[in-house]
């Protein structure tokens, strides 16, 4: 039980913790369950109390719902959102309800749960899944260290509103965390991009590794061969941590001075680029890079004091000292990787992006498919276009891309860049006058939405009504998941709020459309006609007849 001194156990701000139900089962070993707790300042006793409550609720709710135990707890002052990220491993987000300092009390659960899901995906993207990490180190120390660094950095940025991140709110009702922001292009362009990816894929038939590719323009995904969740996480990282950096240091002169003895990742990239431009031997360069990386040679190319023209972009916090850190290619257990803190990316003159986020000059690598697959991360930027190549680490970096192939790819990128730029339409390119909308394709986890600036013009009543209806739809989706034998039917909702705005939801088994119409005739028929026009003009009649 809580004592008086524990009054602040719930605190005023956000809490996030991760615990493993399989651990610490003996009395007195409760702390063993806790893998991560944010913020660190909370005393261990209080941590145990909160985790104990969560565990108790899970046990209790399993009585009635063994397959889906506690998902959310609502109290007068707080909300606890649960997410079972891996079997028996739970993440819990505790937020204060209402102002000041809390989230809106009516904010839908899934918007908050998406924060947990995003945090987990980010962790796995950079570190691999919990199961593997615990298998390597059953004591959990390595996992705790990685969680502490990755999630703390993420929450630090999220709560601080840094790098364009923010907690969900009613105002973000026309966005979907964890979905791929999609740039719609015409059919010809889409085919061109697919052709480009096909060209990249031919590398494996020529003896190279199988590649995953992703093409972005101004942070929006044009096309991807990745799994939807991987693509969304990669896009999230590029938009928040790389695109901002590259925009600020995209000039060739921004390339930091590279010593003749440059090694590691940059050497590898440079040799890759040289291969693309027909110079040198790619195989030799990559072998050299790998060898140097494995030898742990520090990256001496990083500027000791970045110059004005080549200033790397990083967080306000100073980058931790590298002393004591061991450069290596395997970032999983060393705790060296802090891609979310102090990360800097540069665009070199050859177009390839380099970073110091992976300390010690190691090759940036990420985990795909829920941690099952690890791949090297290569990013090539050409004006607004960004081509991301993900090479499996278990492949030899030999014959990455034969020179003739690279030349073709480069040429395609140049031509695509102009075409996609024409179709981009600027920051408000997805805006449709009279409509504020969000369209989500669940099969590909793609979304298209009104620009944030336009969505921000909606009245509070409209946003609250939208949030309410979305919450109801979330529940329906959850119910449908519980009964997979019953196919999800198409549904349609028109809600007229107190401010006379219409909130419209259309949903099929894989498509969701949320629209707010604030300037429309007050009749249901008029709103329906407007929606039909939107469906026809923007979505190609996706919801008609449903």
């Amino acid at each position: 039980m809580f004592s008086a001194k524990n009054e602040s156990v719930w605190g005023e701000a956000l809490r996030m913790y991760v615990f493993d139900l399989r651990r610490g089962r003996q009395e007195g070993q409760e702390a063993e369950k806790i893998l991560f707790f944010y913020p660190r300042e909370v005393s261990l006793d209080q941590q145990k109390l909160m985790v104990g409550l969560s565990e108790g609720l899970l046990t209790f709710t399993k009585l009635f719902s063994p397959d889906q135990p506690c998902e959310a707890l609502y109290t007068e002052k707080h909300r606890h959102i649960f997410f079972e990220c891996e079997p028996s491993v739970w993440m819990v987000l505790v937020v204060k309800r209402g102002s000041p300092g809390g989230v809106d009390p009516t904010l839908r659960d899934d918007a908050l749960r998406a924060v947990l899901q995003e945090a987990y995906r980010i962790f796995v993207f950079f570190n691999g899944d919990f199961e593997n990490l615990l298998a390597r180190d059953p004591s959990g120390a390595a996992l705790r260290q990685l969680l502490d660094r990755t999630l703390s950095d993420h929450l630090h940025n999220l709560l601080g509103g840094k790098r364009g991140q923010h907690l969900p709110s009613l105002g973000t009702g026309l966005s979907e965390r964890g979905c791929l922001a999609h740039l719609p292009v015409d059919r010809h362009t889409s085919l061109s991009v697919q052709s480009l990816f096909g060209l990249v894929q031919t590398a494996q038939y020529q003896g190279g590794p199988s590649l995953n590719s992703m093409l972005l323009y101004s942070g929006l995904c044009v096309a991807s061969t990745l799994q939807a969740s991987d693509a969304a996480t990669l896009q999230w990282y590029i938009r928040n941590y790389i695109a901002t950096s590259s925009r600020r240091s995209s000039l060739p002169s921004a390339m930091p001075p590279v010593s003749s003895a440059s090694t590691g990742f940059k050497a590898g990239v440079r040799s890759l680029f040289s291969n693309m431009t027909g110079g040198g031997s790619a195989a030799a360069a990559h072998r050299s890079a790998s060898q140097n990386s494995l030898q742990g040679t520090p990256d001496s190319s990083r500027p000791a004091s970045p110059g004005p023209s080549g200033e790397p972009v990083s967080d306000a916090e100073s980058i931790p000292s590298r002393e004591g850190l061991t450069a290596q290619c395997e970032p999983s257990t060393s705790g060296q990787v802090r891609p979310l803190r102090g990360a800097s990316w540069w665009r070199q003159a050859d177009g390839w992006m380099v970073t110091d986020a992976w300390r010690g000059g190691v090759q940036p690598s990420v985990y795909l498919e829920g941690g099952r697959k690890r791949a090297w991360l290569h990013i090539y930027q050409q004006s607004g276009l960004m081509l991301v190549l993900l090479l499996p680490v278990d492949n030899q970096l030999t014959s990455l891309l034969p020179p003739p192939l690279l030349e073709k790819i480069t040429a395609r990128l140049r031509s695509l860049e102009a075409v996609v730029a024409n179709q981009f339409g600027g920051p408000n390119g997805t805006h449709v006058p009279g409509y504020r909308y969000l369209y989500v394709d669940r099969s590909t986890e793609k979304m298209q939405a009104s620009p944030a600036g336009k969505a921000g013009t909606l009245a509070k009543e409209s946003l609250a009504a939208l949030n309410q209806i979305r919450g109801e739809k979330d529940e329906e989706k959850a119910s449908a998941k519980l009964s997979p034998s019953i196919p999800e039917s198409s549904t349609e909702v028109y809600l007229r709020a107190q401010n006379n705005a219409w909130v419209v939801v259309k949903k099929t088994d894989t498509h969701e459309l949320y629209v707010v119409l604030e300037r429309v005739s007050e009749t249901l028929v008029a709103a329906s006609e407007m929606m039909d026009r939107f469906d026809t003009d923007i979505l190609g009649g996706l919801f008609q007849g449903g």
Partner: protein
Amino acid sequence: MAPPPLPNESKRENGGSSGPNTVHPTAAAAQAAAGAASSAAMAGVMLALKALKTTAESNGGVEQRPRRRQGELQNRGKNAVGEPEGGPAAGVKRHRKKRNGAGQGVRLDVPMGGLEGPMVSLQGGPPGRFQSSSKALAGLPKGGSLEKPKRGGGAQGSDSGASRREGLGLGSIDRGEGGAQRFDTQRPERTDEESGQAGSPAERAAAPSSAILQAPPVAAKASSPEIHKELGDANVQSQRGGQDADGVQIEDPPGVGEGYLGSSGSAVEGLSERSTSDSSLAEARGGCWTPGKKHTDEDDSSESWRKRKRHFFILSNAGKPIYSRYGDEHKLAGFSATLQAIMSYVENSKDTIHSIRAGAHKIVFMARGPIYLVAISATGEPESSLLRKLDLLYGQLISILTDSIERTFRRNQKFDVHSLLGGTEPVFASLMHVFSWDYAVLLRAFTCLPLPYAARQAAGVALQEIASPGLVFGLLLAPAGKIISLVAPRRTPPHPDDVLLLCNFVGASESFRTSESFVPLCLYRYNPSAFLYAYVGYLEPEVCLVLLTSQQDGFFHLKECRAHIEQSLRITGVFREVAAAVTRGGLRVEEVPSASAAAQRRLAAGTETGEGIGSLPSSRSSITASNHTLRQKQTASGDASTSGRWGPGRSRDEGLSAGLGGPAGIWHFLYRHTAVDQYLASEYSPPLETRAAQKRVFQTYQRLLASMQGDGAKSGPHRMQYRRDSEFVMLAWSTSDFDFYAVFDPLADKDAAIAVCNRVCTSIRQIEGDLFQTGPVPLAW
């Protein structure tokens, strides 16, 4: 309209239980009523009603009235009983009952106006009045309509003030002949009870299990020496009566030591005993429900118990179980302690737990002082709906115990409340059924039996005529909790929740039908700290009279009032109208006037009432104005005025095919009259004839209403909603005057659905006097 057939008559004569939808089977009752009606004392009333009926019949069987606003309803009510042209001053004058040595009389001054001549003063002689009802019952065949054929007690009241006093003094049990049950004054039986010791369960169990007559609170509060003395002889009689093989059981008085808690506990004690095999009650509630607690052998270790769709629990803040919908409370002590631990765990951090979500399950908590209520539901209903039900569950508990139970728990956490709740299982079980089927729970309103306006007014007049200084509310109830009439002499109308719980309390036991009862009951919205005393008596199988008084010794007076009301209702033909209305049922969607009929009506009216959902009239004024114009036109246009009319008494053939198979396929609707907190639900029509379909509709409405209400903070209440899924198209429309909810065929066209909604709303507004009680008592709270 001809009286409906009497389907259960033969059954009743054979001693079967009475069904709620049957009319009184005995010819003797009709004769008694006719005899009373022919008496000179009632001649004026009869003449007035005859004139009224004549007027109604000349209008095609449905009374034609000009539409008026609520403020005008008072005058409309006067017109219904023959208001003279002279103006309001010549309206109905009601006088309070005046008692004299010969008994209580009711002076009913009915101005006959231009209809029947000068004002007639009526001095209803008590003997005749009171004898009429007792004669009716006494005239029953042996083992007639009463539940227990061999039961000796009959409902017969004291015939005069003198005999009433005599009854008080002697507590005589006057048994009717022929096996008809007679009412008896109830008295405390044992001196230990008088001193505060509740009767032992064993003693109560020893009593016959039927026809338990409720002890009036005057007996319950037996601490008064005068009452003790006065009741002394009655005790003997009562005790004898309790041991009588005929089955008349005198209700134990409450334990004085627990005050009114004991009183209430005692008052409801007999309910469980009464409610055995309440088949007619089940029939009234849909035919699939049997009263009483079920699955008592289960506990939290039972897989079947865990898989129940919806649990409700009441527990004390010490973790002691008070009530569980399923399972035995005593076996659920461990589970109850777990619930208490969760709530306390959060409470100790200066927070309050509200709810938990786990897959399809929602667990909702509510703390009311030291009483905790928990709902665990996997039905998909919104949390707001579960909270509402927990609140009603709490209200039902308070209605039995008053909120003094909270003080008791504060004083003694280990207090065992089961002794006070003994026998109330049927009440809670019935409430659980109400939660799943009664739209009053969703709409926070009550519903009226569709009746011709004149009949409802006559019923209201009959209720208003009684003069009882302590009378708080008077209700005439039809089966399924439908209100025939409701009066609030103190101008404080009851809250719909109180009406709901009261109806549930009365409807939970079939045995209220067999005897007059006087039970302490708390209306938790009215005053959660005090008891009122409810006189409950069935005037007809489908008409229940409930009079709520603040006077604990008001039984005899209310009994006299009942006789007067019964006579008045019989004279005015209200019983016949009610029986017809019950047989007829509510409105049906098949009878929605078609577009052509509506157009014809509009054409006849010469006005285009094109406003509606499609164009959203923003206020009632537009509709009212158009309808007012319409009525004027109707008056002038003869047949055209009734061609599109829809309402009670209209046969299905006259209705058109806007329901199943119609262009918009409306299946069901709910209409809530905001100003009077009353609602109207259409009857279930095909394809909603199955219970499963009806339950889906109910749950759909549940979600729709919660969605329209919003979160109550930033979102909602909303103005309109249209939903379409694989099962239904749903339409909700909320204005300042009414809320409308409808369920359509999933393939219903949007435009056509809107048009049907407009027609339904317009039609309801045209006959709202028949569907709602809109006056003369203001029902705004």
